[in-house]
């Protein structure tokens, strides 16, 4: 027993009213979906923690501190003169990821190196003051970083990332 094609034709033409109603339903459906998608974006409390202030007054030259920022480790290293010299002595063109040391610190603040403590290979946290270049060494797959945090040897494709940061005062930096 089939119920189809009952009640005469004349209803087959797409009429404006039905189309408009359908359009409203479509718009409504899209509007309804957005909150369900957006709720997965960072919530207000997470966004409020998007920057961190660090007091660097206690850090001596030759010392490095690890800060947590946005759930990730950040190395704040106060470099010695020797470390800065070593970083400047490198021929930038020979680097796997060419970048001059000047581009990786704030002007006039060559002492201070701020980099994300995440190996650019597969995300492990490298060990400081280790490896062949006195920078960092990643034990997971053997990547070596220099005193500017640049990749020198090993599988990592890029230098340690320098996050957005700024000196609020000589003893206070804000990351993020």
């Amino acid at each position, binding site marked *: *027993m*089939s*119920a*189809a094609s*009952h*009640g005469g034709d004349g*209803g087959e033409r797409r009429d404006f009213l*039905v189309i408009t*109603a359908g359009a409203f*339903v479509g718009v409504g459906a899209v509007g309804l979906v957005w*909150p*369900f998608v*957006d*709720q*997965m*974006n960072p*919530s*207000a*409390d*997470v966004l409020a923690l998007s920057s961190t202030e660090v007091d660097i007054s206690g850090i001596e030259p030759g010392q490095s501190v690890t800060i947590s920022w946005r759930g990730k480790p950040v190395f704040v290293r106060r470099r010695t003169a020797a470390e800065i010299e070593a970083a400047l002595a490198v021929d930038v063109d020979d680097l796997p990821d060419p970048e001059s040391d000047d581009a990786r610190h704030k002007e006039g603040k060559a002492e201070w190196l701020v980099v994300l403590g995440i190996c650019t290979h597969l995300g492990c946290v490298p060990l400081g003051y280790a490896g062949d270049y006195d920078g960092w060494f990643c034990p997971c797959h053997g990547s070596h970083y220099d005193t500017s945090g640049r990749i020198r040897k090993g599988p990592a494709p890029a230098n340690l990332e320098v996050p957005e940061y700024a000196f609020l005062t000589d003893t206070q930096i804000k990351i993020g």
Partner: protein
Amino acid sequence: MSFQTDNKLIKWFDDRLPLVSVMHHTFVQHPYPRNLNVAYQFGSILGVMLTLQIVTGIVLAMHYTAHTSMAFDSVEHIMRDVNYGWLLRYMHANGASMFFIAVYLHMFRGLYYGSYKAPREMIWMIGVVILLVMMATGFMGYVLPWGQMSFWGATVITNLFSALPVVGDPIVTWLWGGFAVDNPTLNRFFSLHYLLPFVIFGLVFLHLVALHQKGSTNPLGIEIKGPADYISFHPYFTVKDFFGFAAFGVIFAVFVFWFPNYLGHPDNYIPADPLVTPAHIVPEWYFLPFYAILRSVPDKLMGVLAMFAAIGVLFILPWLDRSRVRSAAFRPQYKWFFWIFALDCIVLGYAGSQPAEGNMLIVSRIATIYYFVHFIFLMPVLGWFERPKPLPTSISEAVLAGKASTSAGENA
């Protein structure tokens, strides 16, 4: 006419997994009575509400933490910090209420039009199971915010099982996972609250399969006799149901956006405190009639049994009702008793919201007794002694003749 297409891709697919032809069969071929009215729209509305509750629930679960030390805070995190969290929470909480409004209207339709009568007993009984699972789901969901009512409602209701002789106390300890409602209880309620809606989904599928076997009833209560009596689901009931969703949505939106806490209880905005009992412990409104029945009976065990019997009696309704006429449209005496029963349910609900003492307790007891009298005594007796009106010969005859006469003649 069965499903035909020239599209090779659809043919390939449908030949291996007949989704398209099943859809075609259900929505184009299968006969639906042409005279279905508004009361028949709550089934599809329930389908929409189940989907909405599942979707809002899943996204809320991305932000909720089911631990006593964090549950309440996590809900406030959702309300204040999660993007649109307040909207999702209010949709889910008020959605539960709308879900129950729809299910009660859906059930009352069944009671009025005799939808439960042979040969549709299975549809009805599966429906009662769905109601039970809905109640369990709603009960556990209300515990999750871990407010005062969450905690104390859980305590009172789980304590009921201690009324069972011998096995009562071990069962309660087993439910709690400890010596009182506490973290183990909350955690397992979260797990089960997530699970049961999918059980409901499966039961709804069975409910629809059983429905499809026999086809829908209609307001006249007489079976489809010929092609003039029926129409396809699409486009007629598609568009009508969409209208129903929109209208229902307006009421839903009024609650969500303008009165989001009206159906709730202020005490649930107080974090749970096992050492302080609220002045009046009240469940959510949709449990109030059953709560009234529970408290009407002075004996603890009998009260519990009466409460479950209130739902149990629904199971056997197809056999309690001895009438040979299906729809109340042709049963003038039953019609009166139907409305009195509906009023009785409202009275029970009100009684459930008040302290069980004094005059209110007397009212509760009378209403409880009447509830059971309606099913156990009136339904069979009416069937034997009523004088039904003569049935029309067919649906189409009634529809064409009765833009005026019968109350079921209009399909708008």
